[in-house]
């Protein structure tokens, strides 16, 4: 058992580090072949992000419109009378679809003689500050009149002060489908009623929550779950395509999540021709950056500066060596002194009268 344990300790590999180069696979391979390192270097492939899910089609609105034209208002309402349709469109920053959905709901409810319910939807559309869609021109004048009337009423009402904070650092807040309204924490004034607050940040899954603005002031704290690797890959690709350097802090963090790598080393071309640049991130946080001519020297440099390992110090530069030498010298001196001091004496006694 002990032998197995000793063997496993002696043959144990060091920590595993993923090496990535999104510019040159050969560069990553050469980096991973750096000899005599107490770590395992594995070449990683930069993620190819899957296309984002297609936004919901406007087919539902088309069907509802057809039902309204055929005076089949129950069918129309069945298709549109779900608030989630509006919220989902707003979460996707699709204000046009949200506006069209609400406008057709107003039209169908007026056709079904549900005046109060139609008015409530009209108030929500106004509170969200959604523009009146072109579809209104195809509806009855009664619908347009209602929508204009409630908009004026909503505009005349006092606004509610809203404070938004987030558990996510530097979270970007979008209100009612208007992207990048502010960076949390922030304050704004909103019309009374139901709103949709969306929070997004690199490394996190965008999250939308409903907010009811009521009274004089409303506070809300929004959180977001960490991004999964595929989302992180999309976010990383977005950053790279927007020109962020491959060794940027955010980029490294996203790439670590996308590759599921706690220790990530990226290499790529340097600022000047013939040089190479790289960075080392541990748990998504950049620990070291360096620039060298040779990729394997660059890797060593990053691992040392990132404190992944320490280069071995010559024996004579280690203090225990000199302590041992000193102790040996003292021991030798003491032993010699003891031996010399305690040398046996043989005294011959002779008569010499």
């Amino acid at each position, binding site marked *: 058992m002990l032998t197995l344990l000793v063997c496993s300790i002696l043959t144990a590999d060091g920590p595993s580090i993923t090496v990535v180069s999104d510019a040159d696979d050969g560069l990553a391979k050469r980096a991973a072949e750096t000899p005599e390192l107490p770590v395992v270097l594995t070449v990683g492939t930069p993620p190819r992000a899957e296309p984002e899910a297609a936004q919901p089609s406007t087919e539902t609105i088309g069907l509802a419109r057809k039902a309204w034209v055929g005076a089949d208002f129950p069918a129309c309402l069945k298709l549109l009378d779900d608030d989630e349709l509006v919220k989902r469109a707003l979460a996707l920053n699709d204000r046009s679809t949200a506006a069209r959905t609400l406008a057709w709901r107003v039209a169908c409810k007026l056709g079904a003689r549900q005046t109060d319910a139609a008015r409530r939807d009209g108030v929500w559309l106004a509170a969200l500050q959604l523009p009146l869609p072109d579809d209104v021109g195809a509806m009855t004048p009664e619908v347009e009149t209602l929508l204009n009337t409630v908009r004026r009423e909503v505009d005349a009402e006092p606004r509610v002060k809203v404070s938004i904070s987030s558990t996510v650092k530097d979270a970007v807040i979008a209100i009612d489908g208007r992207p990048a309204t502010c960076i949390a924490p922030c304050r704004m004034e909103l019309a009374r009623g139901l709103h949709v607050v969306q929070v997004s940040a690199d490394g996190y899954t965008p999250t939308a929550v409903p907010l009811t603005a009521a009274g004089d002031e409303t506070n809300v704290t929004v959180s977001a779950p960490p991004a999964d690797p595929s989302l992180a890959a999309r976010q990383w690709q977005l950053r790279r395509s927007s020109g962020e350097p491959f060794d940027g802090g955010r980029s490294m963090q996203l790439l670590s999540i996308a590759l599921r790598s706690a220790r990530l080393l990226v290499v790529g071309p340097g600022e000047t021709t013939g040089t190479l640049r790289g960075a080392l991130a541990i748990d998504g946080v950049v620990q070291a950056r360096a620039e060298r001519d040779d990729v394997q020297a660059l890797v060593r440099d990053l691992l040392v500066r990132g404190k992944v390992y320490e280069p071995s110090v010559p024996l004579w530069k280690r203090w225990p060596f000199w302590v041992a030498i000193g102790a040996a010298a003292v021991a030798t001196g003491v032993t010699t002194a003891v031996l010399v001091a305690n040398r046996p*004496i043989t005294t011959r*006694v002779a*008569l*010499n*009268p």
Partner: protein
Amino acid sequence: MKRTVLSVLMLLGACTVQREVSLTFGSEGEGLDGFMCRDPNANNQFLLDRAKDGDGGVKSGALVFDFVRLGGVPGCRTGQLVKWCSTHECKPLLQTRSCVPITLPTVTPMIPREDLRAAILTAMKQAASFGVLNDAPDEFVIVRAVGTLQSCDELLPSAAAVELPAFDKKLLTGCAYSCPVLLDRVDQDVYLGFETLTGLCEQGVRTCSDGQLQWQP
């Protein structure tokens, strides 16, 4: 490297200091007073005269050397030594006794003391360079030289002996002893002498030659 260090240590360990210490009665025989004693119970005869046989001849005797363990370091004066040995065990070491045959001079009753001293010293020189002991004890001892008419064969212990043969007090011819000394450390010759204020010192010779250095009445 390891072997060299070991060799040096072994050499150091094996290196024994060889010394030699001489026993002397003084350049003029000052320490020989114990061999010039007279016996008040025998018409004040010199003890040396015990060697005379009836035919006018002289019997040969022996000079016996003992190393007496003291169990401490008492003073050097006779009184101090006797007092010390009355409460401590003062015993000659069994394996350290040595003996050399010697013929001491017989004398006329009126011989001047200095002539007698010179004659005894001359006789003692018969035993010059006698190897008293090859390895002195590693402790404080007194060295004692006893003159006797007994033979060395009588006085040297056998291999199985547990005690030293005692001297025949009637055959003693003289005695001398040293101060307590650690022979491995002494840097001078060791002087053997005998303290007496009078020539009638046969009692002192008996005390000096006693097996336990006890006072002899």
